[in-house]
């Protein structure tokens, strides 16, 4: 199931990257920039947005490699706190929420801003409770006390 999802979304992303290279906005940039851009840069990338997408796919792939490696080496002792820590980390979505809530989407405050604000509240809940409970659990893990000198 999850494999299905991962594969599906990766595939979708790649296909989309391909399709986008011929979509209006990408080719427009490429054309207007073509005159001034060096042969080297043309050779390396035909459109700025394509380059952006590729960069994101690279970042995603590398981050997944890092993630799988790093998590596999987390101590088994700490799997419960790990769950709450990553739970807190997944609340980076707060970044997107702030950009939505603080952005300009029409005259003054719009319902889009409201959505962003609700998302902020939800994310901050996650962050606060996630980090606090992780720390609370980790505090409990103690080494054997050396009583005798």
């Amino acid at each position, binding site marked *: 199931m*999850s494999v299905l*999802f*991962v594969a599906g*979304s990766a595939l979708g992303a790649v*296909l*989309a990257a391909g399709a*986008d290279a011929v979509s209006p906005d990408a080719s427009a940039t490429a054309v207007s920039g073509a005159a001034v851009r060096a042969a080297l840069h043309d050779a390396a990338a035909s459109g700025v947005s394509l380059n*952006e997408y590729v960069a*994101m796919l690279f970042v*995603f792939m590398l*981050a*997944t490699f*890092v*993630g799988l490696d790093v998590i596999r080496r*987390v*101590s*088994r*002792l*700490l*799997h*419960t*706190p*790990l*769950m*709450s*820590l*990553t739970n807190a*980390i*997944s*609340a*980076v*979505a*707060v*970044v*997107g929420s*702030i*950009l*939505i809530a603080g*952005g300009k*989407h029409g005259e003054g405050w719009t319902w*889009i801003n409201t*959505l*962003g*604000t*609700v*998302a*902020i509240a*939800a*994310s901050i*809940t996650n*962050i*606060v*409770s*996630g*980090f606090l*409970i992780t720390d609370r*659990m*980790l505090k409990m893990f103690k*080494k*054997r006390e050396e009583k005798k000198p």
Partner: protein
Amino acid sequence: MSDPVVQLAYLVSTGLFIFALKWMNHPETARRAVLSGVAAMALAIIGTCLSPGLISSHFKYIALAAIIGTVIGVPLSWVPLTAVPQRTALSHAFGGLAAGLVGVAEFYKQHAEGGHALGRFETSALCAEVLLGFLTFTGSLMAAGKLQELKFIPSRPVTYKGQNVVNLSLLGIAVFCCVLLVIDGARFQHLFPVVVILALLFGVLLIIPIGGADMPTVISLLNSYAGLSAVAMGFVMGNKLLITAGALDGSSGLILSIIMCKAMNRSFANVLFGAFGKVQRAEAAAENKIIRSATPRDAAELMENASLVVIVPGYGMAVAQAQHRVREVYDQLTKRGIRVKFGIHPVAGRMPGHMNVLLAEADIPYEDLVEMDEINPEMPQCDICLVIGANDVVNPAARDNPKSPIYGMPIIEADKAKVILAVKRSMNPGFAGIENDLYYNEKTLMVFGDAKAVAGEIAKHLAGDSSE
């Protein structure tokens, strides 16, 4: 000027998130991990607030939202350790909601003033974000409800004929709508709410057929989805911090659920569609075999003469909150120079690492919490194996009986010890709903009763004897 600063903040934040997870590889560096995570998050938030294009008059609402979040979040972190799975699930629900809402906002923003049409790449990512986000939202709420044993959410699996077909076709329709949206977002705009509603519905339907006890695996999977929806958000916004942090989170959820599945010797498909813990419950307890039982006083006397005692805790210890009494037993025994170790099975209890947290809470030094693979070779030298509220994780059928539903699941080999003391309330089966031959083993003595009460009495007898 401020934009390179923002990007730099994101870069450093990403590095700190990675270090946070790296430092979780040992209890000694683990608290640094939290610090690093907090610093990373703080940098991410501050960086974002410095981004150009934000309207300063909106900051008061942002601050208000942050305050509300904090007010809800702080008490949520006070839950008792037994409620940690529910809390995590609830928290994922919030995470999914946030991702989903941001997705909706982004979709409608393109038609608002100053909005620009999303490209195909962004639209596909946005669809993934919304699907995963809302699915995680309702799915996690359901999971939390099942774990909390709320009345209106049946915690046993609810199945009906053709269930998988219905679920998969719902998902199919949602994906089809997404494809249309990618092809022509403006024309098929009205399909967007359909996608949202289907995602919400699918989340509920996905969890309904899964038993309450399988929730930990499901929660881990939902954690992975929450991470992936953050990745998708990153793709839409062109934000590499979101992509990296999301990917870290996605891998974590995936690996934890794989670990759980492996330790239970089951597949993902079996967890998600198997409606486990329903059918097999029936077949338990058939023949009449001989059971030997003992009192806590007998147990204490046996243990006094041991030189190596291995304690194998399980779900029962968690339910009974017996860890502090177990700690007393541990103290009494070590005081007499008896070596005491804990044998920790990876899926003992109801979430990964469950026993470790409980025992750490009771101040057992973590050096004495020994993993399954390391304790098993020592079991033949073990004089007394004290099984407290564990059942499936010490069931020899998993090793010996190819017909058993849990055959192939790795176990702690309690039956190799010289004497086994099993503390539980009855002869009822555990999570997997099957008979455990360990209890009929001639080396086994059953000590019936609540884990907390029994452990308390054993400790008292040990203490009494020593003061005699």
